[in-house]
């Protein structure tokens, strides 16, 4: 488990410097660049215009492209992300959620049968699978770098 974070200059110094360097470079670029005066929106209503632009309707006072298709795509992306999140959270293979042994998606049929027959091999194997740690864990910790230990 992760532990409480604390500033550790020893291992954070370099990343900090890297991030700082990026900032310095960015700042240099921004400050040396010259921009014309901003055009602004001259007080035109921004939020309604966004609404019109989003749904590809006439009436927006500020120029913009139409975003209906992008809107639809983002919709799909969100749904896909939702589905993906659910997929990732599910256990592969037997359709059980992680760490929640007893939640069933089959309306409790197999649970009934488990209670009916104690020696059901299914339940036995279920438990086994749940407690089973992925073999990757072993390799993962084997190959972890020393920095991994520091954080603990």
């Amino acid at each position, binding site marked *: 488990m992760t532990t409480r974070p604390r500033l550790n200059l020893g291992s954070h110094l*370099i*990343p900090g410097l*890297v*991030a700082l360097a*990026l900032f310095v*470079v960015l700042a*240099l*670029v921004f400050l*040396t660049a010259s921009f014309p005066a901003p055009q602004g929106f001259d007080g035109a209503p921004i939020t309604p215009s966004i609404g019109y632009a989003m749904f590809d309707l006439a009436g927006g006072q500020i120029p913009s492209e139409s975003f209906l298709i992008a809107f639809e795509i983002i919709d799909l992306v969100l749904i896909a992300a939702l589905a993906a999140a659910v997929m990732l959270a599910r256990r592969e293979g037997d359709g059980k959620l992680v760490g929640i042994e007893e939640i069933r998606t089959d309306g409790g049929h197999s649970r009934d049968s488990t209670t009916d027959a104690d020696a059901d091999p299914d339940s036995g194997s279920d438990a086994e699978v749940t407690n089973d740690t992925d073999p990757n864990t072993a390799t993962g910790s084997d190959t972890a770098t020393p*920095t991994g230990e520091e954080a603990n």
Partner: protein
Amino acid sequence: MSVAEASTTAFAFEVAPAIAVLPLASFVIALFAGKYFPKKGALAGVTATGGSLLLSLWVMLTVAGGAYYNEEIYTLVSTPESFDLHFGVLLDPLSALMLVIVSLVSFLVHVFSLGYMNDEGERGLPRYYAGLGLFSFSMLAFVFADNLFMSFVFFELVGLCSWLLIGHWYREDAPPSAAKKAFLVTRFGDYFFLIGVVAVFATFGTATFAGSESFPVLAEEALTDGGAGGELSTFGLGAQTWFTVLGFLILGGVIGKSAQFPLHTWLPDAMEGPTPVSALIHAATMVAAGVYLVARMYGFYALSPTALAVIAFVGGFTALFAASMAVVKRDVKQVLAYSTISQYGYMMLGLGAGGYVAAVFHLMTHAFFKALLFLGAGAVIIAMHHRQDMWEMGGLREKLPVTYYTFLAGSLALAGIVPFAGFWSKDEVLYEALVHGLTDPLLLVAYLMGLIAVFFTGFYTFRMVLLTFHGEPRTHTARNPHLPGWNVKFPLVVLGILATVIGLTNMTPVAEATGLEIEFLHTWLEHGIEGLNSEHYGELLETVAGYSAAELSPLLAAALSLALALGGAGLAYSLYSGDRPDRHTDRLGDARTLLMNNYYQDEYQVWIAETFGTGVARLSDRFDQSIVDGAVNGVSSVSLFSGGRIRRIQTGIVSNYATLLTLGLVALLLVVGLTGGWFL
């Protein structure tokens, strides 16, 4: 010549390709259907080579009628932009003579094989007869080849057949090894030959032997009047030098195939093959291919005195060198093998010394008497139940009279005892070497070596005869030999007669002494296609190569060599004629060891092969594995290693990634800002 006659001659020549194609057919039959025939393909071979013999005789008769033939029959590749490659038939006195020799020996060997292979119950007979058929095909095609390319093609093919047939008994260890050695050593020679063939094409744009556009003619023109010489590309060398180089390159193949020093080492090992094969391939015909090739393109060699001198010297040296080794051998086939090398040395000596006719004459007589000796040895081996050590024989004379007398005829011919065939031909070779050698010291040395070899020849020949046939039988097998059948005796008798009388066709000393016109072979070879006859060669030798012959009676030379041969034979007789001859060669001590080990020729060649072949191969393999492939693997190792290091940036901790991202952003902003002048 009447119209009717012209048409018949044309017909004889038109069917001439069949001389080679018939054995090819027998090869196919033996290979694919041999096992279904009663004699496993032998009959097909006998029929085919018999047919070839008849056709060859017909061609010879036609050539004797003064008609010659030089046609392309099959174009392999034609290129309008460059030279063509084709197969052709060149029939002139030389090739007609050789065709008869080859097909006759081949026919007799097929017959003999019935006794040696079939009757002995050997396995793999279809393969054997297929090999013989393929060999006969290749050799005959080589003989009537009309260009150097075709010669090379069939030169290589006879090498394959030699490999197949030496390794016939492949279940044992020695024959495959000997086969490999034979092929490799000859291949080493053929390497130079191949360069030579390619270079001839590159130089002359043609490789035909005969005709006004043939390469010897072009070379001759380049040297004599320089007309066409300017157009030839001679690779930055003078024409004379370049032609000599070409001659040497082709000579490489000749030395390999005709087992001349230093590439002779394969021939004794080749005796691992069946004896009829030794007779056909490693005595009478294939080994002759090299010498025949020099004779075939003699118009080219006659242009280069250097090449000729080297040929003569190599020949003379080989003759002596091989003869000395034959003296101590125990295995009857080994003696014959070394004597073969020695005799081909004589032919080379003859060619190099300008004795074209003499060399061809010796080629002819040797083909007969050496085939006879090998077949005789084969008959002895049959009788001895495949034992070949002469010290286990003895006293076979009574049991095998036909073999004995024919073998004796062959031996007398080999030793060069008058009036057997070898006397006349070897004598003429030596005579030619002497008359030309009196003006050229190198040739004279070659002649002297050849002359000394005569003595050794007489000695080892009669040592062989006496040990094999005379005295008391030294083993049980020798007391109860297995008697050969008709199919063994028939070839022996035919060849025995030929070995006895064939020399009479060209009795130069007699002709000189009596003034009779009986040098038939001289007459035979004097004619022929223009530029391809001995007359022309003689002119070339005098005008281009600058050979000159001293005036000397052939009788003198003949008497000298006969005396030496008799001396050698007499020494052998005095040493080995008893009932229980001693092993006199043991008295030679270290010299015998040296000779038994063939002057360590095999050892040093194996050493070279191991060091420069296997050794370099191992080294380069190690180099390849460590350096070349090491570099490749090194690249991947470096990538893997550096990747392994760099990936450590990826700690897996989100905060670190975020730090890096931020740093990157800062750096990017700074870079863009500084370069873009934002901070001014």
